[in-house]
């Protein structure tokens, strides 16, 4: 059974078919790339899957359960983590506090425990801090721990965004252009982290515009254009597909 599966998924904005009858499957432990020209509906597809937008028709199954109609926070609770195209951060807070945010869904001690600083609450917070330290080390931001996130360079913000979703111990990672704005060295650093995660069993589904990198990293690529899935297959198959070339370069006139 596929980990994530959509059937006939549609999302319309007025007359625009942002996502149009999309079917796909992502198997557990896979690395799948999602590419397509600007405005193809890639981010909209992610927003529909993660509950930020509601599908107009079709279903999305996660581990066999339909997740269409769930709120974004409920989708997150199920173990699906996403990052955003713009690496949004919680401004005015430190890098460490930004990481702790990713752990909130794991925390079960309620308001009163937190208010009265009970032992259970303190232990839970201590676990969160331990985990944040590990993640900080993993994404290579240990030196930035207590700096305000506002002063973090753009490249490192991508690493912080990744770190924050890792705090959620996700089974499925939806990454929206995780490589945008990164240098070559940073790209290989980030991809090797992702490889390591995949080795531990995390499934990765990523939107990406950096063709070389995504072709190298993902054994399977899906192509979206005008909301429709126009191709799917290994990087070489996709690269040579005339339909895909057309979508990116346009039809030759005359």
């Amino acid at each position, binding site marked *: 059974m596929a980990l994530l599966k959509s059937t006939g998924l549609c999302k319309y904005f007025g007359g625009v078919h942002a996502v149009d009858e999309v079917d796909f499957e992502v198997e557990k432990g896979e690395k799948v790339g999602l590419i397509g020209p600007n405005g193809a509906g890639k981010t909209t597809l992610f927003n529909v899957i993660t509950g930020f937008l509601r599908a107009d028709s079709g279903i999305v199954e996660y581990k066999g359960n339909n997740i269409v109609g769930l709120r*974004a*926070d409920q989708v997150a609770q199920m173990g699906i983590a*996403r990052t*955003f195209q713009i690496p*949004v951060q919680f401004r005015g807070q430190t890098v460490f506090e930004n990481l702790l*945010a990713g752990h*909130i869904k794991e925390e079960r001690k309620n308001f009163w425990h937190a*208010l009265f600083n009970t032992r259970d609450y303190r232990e839970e917070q201590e676990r969160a801090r331990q985990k944040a330290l590990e993640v900080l080390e993993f994404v290579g931001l240990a030196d930035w721990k*207590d700096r305000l996130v506002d002063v973090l360079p753009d490249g490192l913000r991508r690493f912080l965004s990744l770190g924050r979703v890792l705090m959620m111990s996700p089974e499925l990672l939806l990454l929206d252009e995780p490589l945008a704005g990164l240098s070559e060295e940073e790209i290989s650093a980030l991809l090797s982290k992702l490889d390591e995660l995949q080795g531990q069993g995390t499934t990765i589904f990523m939107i990406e515009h950096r063709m070389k990198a995504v072709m190298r990293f993902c054994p399977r690529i899906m192509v979206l254009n005008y909301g429709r899935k126009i191709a799917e297959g290994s990087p070489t198959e996709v690269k040579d597909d005339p339909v895909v070339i057309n979508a990116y370069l346009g039809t030759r006139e005359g």
Partner: protein
Amino acid sequence: MNIRDHFRIGVWENVKLGRNATLVALILIIGAIVAGPYFIASRWQHILIMWCLWSIAGISWLVILKVGEFSLCSAAFLCIGAYSSSVMTLKLGCPFWPALIAGGLISGIFALALGVVVFRLKGLYFLVITYLFAEMLRLGISLTGYLGGGTGLYGMPEPGNIGFITFSTKQGWFYLSFLLLLITAFTFRRVEASRIGRVYSYIGMAPDLAESLGVRIMKYKVQAFVLGGIFTGLAGVVMAHYFTGISPESFTLYPSLVTQLVAILGGVPYLVAGPVVGAIIYSAVDEYVAAISGLRPLIVGVLLVVIIFFMPQGIISRLRQLFGKGREAKS
């Protein structure tokens, strides 16, 4: 090293207070607070009472701002607290203390019911609907005969004496307000220092990001609203019984503006200290300006404009900057 650094290091960092010295200082401060009201003029007693009450309402308003919404209904919570306890004591013969607790709780229940509705809206829409709620409530009360209509309710009883504390003079009211302020300050200090406050800031800062991490936004927003509602309601109860009379006219837009004013004066980054600092300035200015009534809104307006223009982050941030301990120092 300039003169300021000398001052800072010399006074604050080289002086280590022993445990005994701290204890003595604490006893002196508590002594000053307990004995204080007997030595100061009645006018200043009044200022201190209003300081406590506006601080409570200001902190309650600020916690709602922390989850990212600008509310305009502090007056409504004050009003609900004040009317609940007034009705209970005047019409149902309930003693003051249970009425005080009930006033806070009823206000909290209203906040819960209102919160689940109004937090479906954001930004300006939220601001407008909270204001409309406050106005609807005020007009509704002025049309209800049982609640005294437009004339209001008068002659609320004062609580009985507790030992040497009497409520027929201002001292008792000061102790009560100050105790409430301490409880409020403790509660919100814990909120700020714990996960609760962090989640509030996450939501206020980047709601979509917070939601993507599994935070149920509505729950925390309503929670902050209810917290604010309860404490503002308690302040409302004390106001009603301290003034021994209320009318719908007491709960116009003005008190809502004052709660914001005190928070903004002190500085919105400081959930507890901000409103506490802002409220002492407001209460003193108000008391000395209130004599020239008619000018009150003008002077309050001028105060707000000056603060927002010259120190948009409030007085505390400005002072910290002056002494080189601004927020930037954190990085």
